[in-house]
């Protein structure tokens, strides 16, 4: 990468695997076309990237893969707009553009030795999966892990192929929940905040990492506080409309905080200090 390279020029990458996660969500595995970059590209769980479908445009996706598994990156996309629809039309072997990694990350260094509580909802599991798989690959660096993951129906759960690996990892509990079960669902039926209250994970020496629909976060926070989690012990990642990813295009700011530069990862204590516009 030369010094005079445009900030907006993506690196080409080949989509080498597409996983249909749910009826509207796919996970794309991308391998950089430049072999040097394939090895050199590294990142932290929680960072994001800009993905181009040439001829359609570019959009922001968090990295859903972990840097501990190198050679490729992964991101998940729910089909919602023009760019994600175009992504969903891609086939294995197609080429996309990738810029990044951008933004800050989950403070995994500070999480060492601590109990981790993951609370994810729907597609919000994507950034948590990056950190979760990172922690599982360095299992001895972290304490007990509880994973709460909820979706509207069993068919809306992503990363189902990995549930066995998560569940079988040492000292890990996986708590799956759906709002509405089906004939095959034998797990928990109910909302995530209530499930968290019932299981009551310990707050002592713990960090809660949450991402999901605003309504889930809104009702999970009081439960976490009830369990003794302070605002500094609760970490989330914010989604804002972004274009450049590098603090130039001027649209992801919340007050003077640029989510692309100062975020997307914030503690709940930091979020409380932000103007409520996100």
């Amino acid at each position, binding site marked *: 990468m030369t010094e005079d390279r445009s900030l*907006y020029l993506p690196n080409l990458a*080949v989509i080498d695997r597409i996983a249909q996660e749910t009826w509207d969500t796919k996970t794309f595995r991308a391998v950089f076309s430049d072999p040097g970059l394939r090895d050199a590209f590294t990142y932290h769980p929680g960072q994001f990237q800009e993905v181009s479908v040439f001829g359609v445009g570019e959009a922001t996706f968090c990295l859903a893969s972990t840097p501990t598994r190198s050679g490729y990156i992964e991101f998940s996309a729910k089909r919602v707009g023009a760019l994600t629809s175009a992504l969903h039309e891609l086939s294995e072997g197609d080429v996309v553009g990738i810029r990044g990694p951008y933004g800050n990350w989950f403070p995994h260094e500070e999480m060492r030795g601590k109990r981790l509580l993951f609370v994810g909802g729907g597609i919000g599991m994507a950034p948590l999966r990056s950190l979760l798989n990172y922690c599982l690959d360095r299992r001895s660096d972290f304490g007990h892990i509880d994973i709460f993951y909820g979706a509207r129906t069993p068919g809306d759960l992503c990363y189902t192929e990995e549930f066995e690996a998560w569940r079988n990892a040492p000292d890990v509990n996986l708590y799956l929940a759906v709002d509405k079960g089906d004939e095959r669902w034998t797990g928990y039926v109910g909302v995530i905040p209530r499930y968290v209250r019932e299981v009551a994970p310990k707050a002592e020496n713990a960090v809660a990492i949450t991402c999901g629909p605003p309504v889930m976060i809104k009702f999970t926070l009081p439960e976490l506080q009830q369990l003794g989690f302070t605002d500094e012990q609760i970490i989330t990642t914010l989604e*804002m*409309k972004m274009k450049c990813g590098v603090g130039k*295009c*001027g649209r992801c700011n919340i007050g003077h905080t640029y989510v692309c*530069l100062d975020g997307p990862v914030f503690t709940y204590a930091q979020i409380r200090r932000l103007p409520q516009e996100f």
Partner: protein
Amino acid sequence: MSDQYPQRILPKAALRRWLERLLVSHRLVGPVADTETVTSYRPVGPEPMLRLSGPRPTVSPKAHLLPQTETLFTFQGSGPALALTAAAPDATPTVVFGVRPCDARALRRLDDVFLGRTERDVHYENRRQATVLVGLACATPSWGCFCTSVGGSPAGTEGLDMLLTDLGDRYHVAVLTPPGEELAASAETVEATANDAEAVRAQHAEAAARMPPEFELEAALRNVRWEAPLWAQVAERCLACGVCSFLCPTCHCFDMQDEVTPDGGVRFRCWDTCQFSEFTQMGAGHNPRPTQTERARQRVSHKFKYLVEEFGRAGCTGCGRCVERCPVNIDIRAILREFAGEGQ
């Protein structure tokens, strides 16, 4: 005025010859009459016809540093054969002539964003480094002008390489930087006299006196705040046309889009504005600024709060174009006056 360089006088009869010499080595951009009442900065050729008198031009020279649309790269082919070609750097030596002090200061604000705040934007940087700014002091401020209210002056030199002052049959030339000195070398100037210097001082003072400060800036900056009934009042009138942003010399927000051509396409960026509802609208539908009230707050707060917190200076240089061209007469001076007057 800088004492580093001797002050010179350029007879108006020698202006044309100077401009033509500059044209040999530079792209020359200057204020050109589009219509009787509209002036904008455009590249000019031999026999340049510049509109150098009157108030500051209708449109600022921003587009010559941050074009309204600009190709970032092109793509060719498709599938596995797809290839990218970066846009060629635009580093043509350029003189922007007749830049008003408000617009030169505004470029310093663009520098904060495009050359500072982490990484440099090479598209902007290439043009910026290749550009010399020849300023022209404002003798006749326009009715919406308020540079003196935001720390500027009709003869301010911030960001300029040279400042000309129109003294009737001649220009007073104040060289401000080495690139300015280099340009001035090709002008047929004579040394300025004490009388010239006095005439310049008088003109600058007279122009400033025609624009007494509209509000106390420090008080306005202190009081601009999130929860203010004013935002909703502004929003009620706002048509969300975006003309304030598009004419603003410091507004820099942009969009990036693709355009498809028969053999590939281009990724271009174009000016955008926080006044449009789509600006922050996310793919799945959520919009953190759902109404014009949040957008009114964003535009004013960005300039008078967030940029101040980040760079220590306001993102407005008082050119007054938004005041004069707003179709529903939203006047940012009145907004700031109201904030400045609170608690007094």
